[in-house]
């Protein structure tokens, strides 16, 4: 159970809200680079943290992210014409540069300085990896550029996708932290083929540990940028198989790896209070992804989703009950009847409603990881609001993190046993079983 005022505090991210202010201390993914594929291409609408914006890429290759609506009479700049040095409103021809500054107002005399006072609110938009990132906060507090490993390895070692999810961001994030659902929803319980059926997970020794021990124990450990959530299962000779999921504030999680498969994770980015983007990435720190792997990712295997062509909305969505297959659910071939990890998650998280009423939850002691994460978020929000305290997670030290899968002696704290393995290290393969 969560008090209603705290539920509001954590779920509302629009301008001027305390959680919105927290998010505005971080670079957030806003567009896949493929959405602005070339210089001078059409502009794209962006909604993030409840702000409606327009993203442009000028013929000169400059990226810009600004208020969606023309300063003159408020038409959407989506209909604008990208021109040399910026974008021109189609209604009366006002033109703005990539920083949102009006540079030409045709109705004014040539030498008028009317333009100077007309500026659309704009934000920095930068390309790191396959993603265009934006920073919507106070320029004076702008953190260093994002340095997550998946976004900084060579291009051929990484793949990113995104999908539209119709619920509040916190519901989605909590799914990333709640490791205890994996055995059931994704693993299929005692009878399921679960993970072995997916080409991006198959063949890992870890899958056997997963299946042979359906009641993992958890340890939730404080980490500089957030939490490390370790799930342990029995392995041979009294040893433990550990799967360690890092969470970095506010909205980054990674899934522990399996075998030499690429490792993966997510960003859960608020679009507005009732929708979010689930960003999913896969990368290998030490080798290129194979054509087969990338094809599988594009087709929606692993943590990715099959999207309606030309959109980021999954083919299996709320409108069609996620194509649930009751026969497969009955036989146990698919435990939930829904295909693919991503849609298994989104179907259930969306089913909770746009913003789940957390006053009606009946949490149990083993939900302590989620309880702890909410607590840390709340503290960060309040510390920023009440004391201006800079939150964690927006600096390179906190972003240089990896998930880990490892077998350790029973008497070792996992943080000790893992050592450097959860540090991102360029070119060094992941620690995995």
């Amino acid at each position, binding site marked *: *159970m969560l008090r209603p005022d705290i539920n509001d505090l954590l779920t509302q991210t629009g301008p001027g809200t305390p959680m919105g202010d927290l998010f505005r201390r971080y670079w957030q993914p806003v567009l896949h680079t493929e959405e602005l594929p070339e210089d001078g291409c059409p502009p794209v609408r962006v909604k993030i943290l409840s702000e409606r914006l327009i993203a442009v890429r000028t013929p000169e290759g400059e990226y810009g992210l600004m208020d969606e609506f023309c300063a003159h009479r408020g038409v959407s700049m989506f209909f604008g014409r990208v021109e040399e040095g910026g974008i021109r409103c189609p209604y009366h021809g006002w033109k703005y540069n990539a920083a949102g500054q009006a540079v030409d107002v045709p109705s004014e005399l040539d030498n008028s300085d009317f333009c100077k006072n007309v500026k659309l609110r704009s934000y920095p938009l930068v390309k790191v990896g396959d993603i265009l990132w934006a920073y919507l906060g106070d320029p004076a507090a702008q953190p260093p550029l994002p340095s997550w490993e998946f976004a900084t390895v060579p291009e051929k070692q990484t793949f990113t996708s995104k999908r539209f999810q119709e619920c509040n961001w916190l519901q989605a994030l909590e799914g990333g932290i709640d490791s205890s659902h994996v055995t059931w929803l994704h693993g299929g319980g005692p009878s399921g083929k679960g993970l072995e059926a997916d080409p991006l997970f198959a063949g890992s020794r870890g899958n056997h540990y997963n299946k042979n021990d359906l009641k993992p124990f958890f340890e939730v450990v404080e980490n500089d940028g957030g939490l490390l959530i370790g799930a342990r299962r029995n392995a041979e000779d009294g040893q433990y198989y550990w799967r360690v999921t890092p969470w970095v504030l506010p909205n980054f999680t990674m899934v522990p790896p399996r075998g030499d498969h690429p490792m993966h994770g997510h960003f859960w980015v608020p679009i507005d209070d009732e929708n979010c983007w689930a960003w999913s990435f896969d990368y290998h720190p030490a080798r290129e992804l194979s054509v087969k792997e990338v094809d599988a990712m594009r087709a929606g295997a692993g943590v990715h989703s099959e999207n309606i062509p030309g959109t980021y909305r999954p083919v299996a969505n709320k409108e069609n*009950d996620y194509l649930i297959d009751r026969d497969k659910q009955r036989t146990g071939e698919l435990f939930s009847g829904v295909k693919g990890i991503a849609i298994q998650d989104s179907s259930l998280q969306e089913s909770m409603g746009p913003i789940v*009423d957390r006053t009606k939850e*009946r*949490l149990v002691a*083993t939900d302590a990881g989620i309880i702890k994460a909410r*607590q840390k978020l709340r503290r960060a929000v309040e510390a920023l609001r009440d004391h201006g305290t800079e939150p964690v997670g927006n600096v390179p030290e906190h972003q240089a993190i990896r998930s880990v899968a490892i077998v350790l002696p029973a*008497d*070792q704290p996992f943080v000790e046993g893992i050592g450097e393995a959860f540090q991102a290290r360029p070119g060094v393969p992941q620690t995995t079983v």
Partner: protein
Amino acid sequence: MATPILVSSCARAATSKEAAYRLDYPLAHARSTRVIAFDPAAAEVVRAVSDGPWGQAHFYTASVSGAELITLSGEARPMAAELEHSDSVIMVATNAINARAVAAVGAVCRERSTMTAGLLMTDEGSLAGDTLMAIRPYARILLVPAEHDDLFELLRATRA
């Protein structure tokens, strides 16, 4: 292809307010949450939290053998009987943990499949390995380290 769903299908309400609708009725509280401190420093933390707005949670320290639980008013009660109708047992410890008592309580919980959570309260970074090892086998979920308000939050979130 799945059966088509009509627009009026009850699961898909039209507005977000309707979609958020939940029947309003009181949810059951947790059943007899037992919070047990396993050393004097942990007892301080437990005592501080014990006069919170709890419905049915009970607070104890453990005897050296673990065979008895001692209420905060000093009354000793047989441990196994005291845990009898409990949904969940929260173990609170610091570096001075009493491993024997933890094992005794843990064994009873395991036998009865009672849910267990462990809070290791300690100054950050100074957690001794043997404390962790003493409690690890018995706590389904462990917070390492737990902070001072974690116990309060956990009790509140689980409606204890």
